[in-house]
């Protein structure tokens, strides 16, 4: 019975000492291994983790240990929500948590934090990902092009969700459309008279791909049957599949 209240001391990189229950500390496979194979009485050094981060991690471990042991009356949904709130931190903290979870081998925390980052990446283009995480693009132009070409299908412009069609609009209305849209793709219908330069400039600022449907009457016409959605600005955005490059 004495083992349930055994405490383990942990010293962080910034010389802070934490005393925690064994059950909580051994959520970390690394600490567990050191404890079981090393000297259980002395302090375990967690060199790579700072006091703040370890404190957060111990909160996480404690919550999960308590809920699993039934010490805390918390439903799976409530725990899920708690986890979701736990990762609502700034980017630096999130990455520190990932590094610490990786180093301390706390699988569930690593899964949670990695999934959080994955959710931030999903649906973004490379340029956006780089901006979000402040990543330097160390590709040469040829190398990047090679990867894109090798995986053409992923980068090909397939209409899909979030495509805006511009047809029979006046110039200023058209500019408003492009400025306010959340679409990634803008298709200009064949019969639309447009000042391509001004539209391209606007579109580039927002990383929108602009495609102009050619005048050729044999080009496949827009499939109407997919979806229509009314956007707050009062313009209608069409979602459809359409392939045609300028």
């Amino acid at each position, binding site marked *: 019975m004495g083992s349930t209240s055994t405490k383990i001391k942990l010293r962080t990189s910034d010389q802070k000492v934490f005393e925690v229950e064994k059950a909580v500390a051994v959520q970390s496979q690394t600490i567990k291994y050191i404890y079981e194979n090393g000297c259980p009485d002395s302090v375990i050094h967690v060199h790579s983790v700072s006091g703040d981060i370890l404190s957060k991690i111990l909160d996480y471990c404690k919550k999960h240990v308590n809920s699993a042991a039934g010490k805390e009356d918390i439903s799976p949904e409530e725990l899920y929500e708690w986890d979701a709130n736990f990762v609502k931190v700034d980017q630096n903290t999130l*990455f520190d948590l990932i590094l610490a979870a990786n180093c301390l081998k706390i699988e569930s925390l690593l899964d949670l934090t*990695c999934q959080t980052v*994955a959710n931030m990446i*999903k649906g973004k283009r*490379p340029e956006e990902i780089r901006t979000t995480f402040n990543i330097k693009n160390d590709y040469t132009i040829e190398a990047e092009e090679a990867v894109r070409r090798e*995986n053409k299908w992923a980068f090909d412009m397939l209409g*899909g*969700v979030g495509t805006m069609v511009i047809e029979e609009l006046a110039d200023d209305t058209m500019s408003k459309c492009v400025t306010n849209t959340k679409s990634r793709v803008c298709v200009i219908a064949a019969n639309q008279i447009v000042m391509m330069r001004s539209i391209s400039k606007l579109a580039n600022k927002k990383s929108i791909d602009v495609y102009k449907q050619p005048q050729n009457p044999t080009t496949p016409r827009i499939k109407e049957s997919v979806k229509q959605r009314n956007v707050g600005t009062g313009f209608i955005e069409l979602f459809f*599949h359409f392939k045609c490059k300028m």
Partner: protein
Amino acid sequence: MEHLPVEVIGNILSRLGGARDVVIASVTCRKWREASRKHLHTLAFNSNDLPPYRDITPKQLEILITQTIFQTTGLQGLSILMDDVDEFSASTVIAWLMYTRETLRRLFYNVRTSPNVNILEICGRQKLETLALAHNSITGVEPNFQRFPCLKSLSLSHVSISALDLSLLLTACPKLESLELVNLEIAMSDAQVTVELSCPTLKSIYVEAISLDKFMLEADSIERLHLRDCALELFELIGIGTLKYFKIDDVSVIHLDIGETIDNLEVVDVSNFTIIWPKFYQMISRSSKLRKLRLWDVAFDDEDEVVDLETIAVCFPQLKHLALSYELRDGVMHYGLQGSSNLENVMVLELGWTVINDLFSHWVEELLKRCPNLRKMIIFGSVSEVKSHEECQILANFTSSIVQLMRKYMNVEVHFEFE
């Protein structure tokens, strides 16, 4: 971000959910590219995630899947779930499976292969932990040569397999814990279609849309049993009383036997079923640990039978969640409400009607009296499209009486769900 090791980036990219997102993200920088090539553990091609797939032909899909898989190494999870694709060619599927054979732990595949390929023969078996197969057929199972030493979860959907092969397959999986059988086409040699399965490690089984004469399952570790939309003459569960969760939904079964010693039941959920009350009662009455009881859209074999609250209160003192919906008939309803024992621990009450009548509000009132610690009540009603004047009147009366009633129970949260 720069400090994250490449394996961790691989872990992150593996959680993106779709191969397209992974490929796009890999262009971010060279480290990410390396992560996607050498440290990606999961890759998924799912048609419902990615609308653009609908415009690509199966042949083109085969090409892009092959190109993408072959850019990775050490893949542990492969998911190819394409609902709109008729079939993939056997040689391509074989290539995917052989390439990932050494490291694969999870395989999800639901596209017909032409000509038919024995997926079990080709996919990696040594490390496989999860296998979900659909729209393929399984033949010639040889447990001596094809063992799945790590398989914990098996799901077969729209698969054609013989009863013998199914039973042999389970013997080839010494660690199986979860089994899902959906819409199986069971090939039988005799006139009687019988399935006899034995799996000592099985904890959970889900069976949907199966029609058989006899289904026997021997499982000494079973905890969850869920049958849905099945037509069976006989269903027999042979175990040692470990069952905790029992759910049947829209099942027609003449002889249902889930064992003699089922004292550990925690959840019993029966819907769209005709209950023979004495037999049913005998089955569950010793489950004093029961937490949730749901009898929804049930009919009783004997018209005079009813669920009586006294029995429920006495047999299931730990009941927290009670859900009842069946036709209320005058004489019988009062019999069911006799007695004075309260359902002390019931916190959630779900009550439903199929045809509304005046008895319903009275029934709700009586039930509220018997649940002193109730916190939440949900009323489910079906409202017919064409409402006669009478029906409108009944609904109005019901609404008024509920409003009045709930004034007495201010601490109970009430919700309504109408369909």
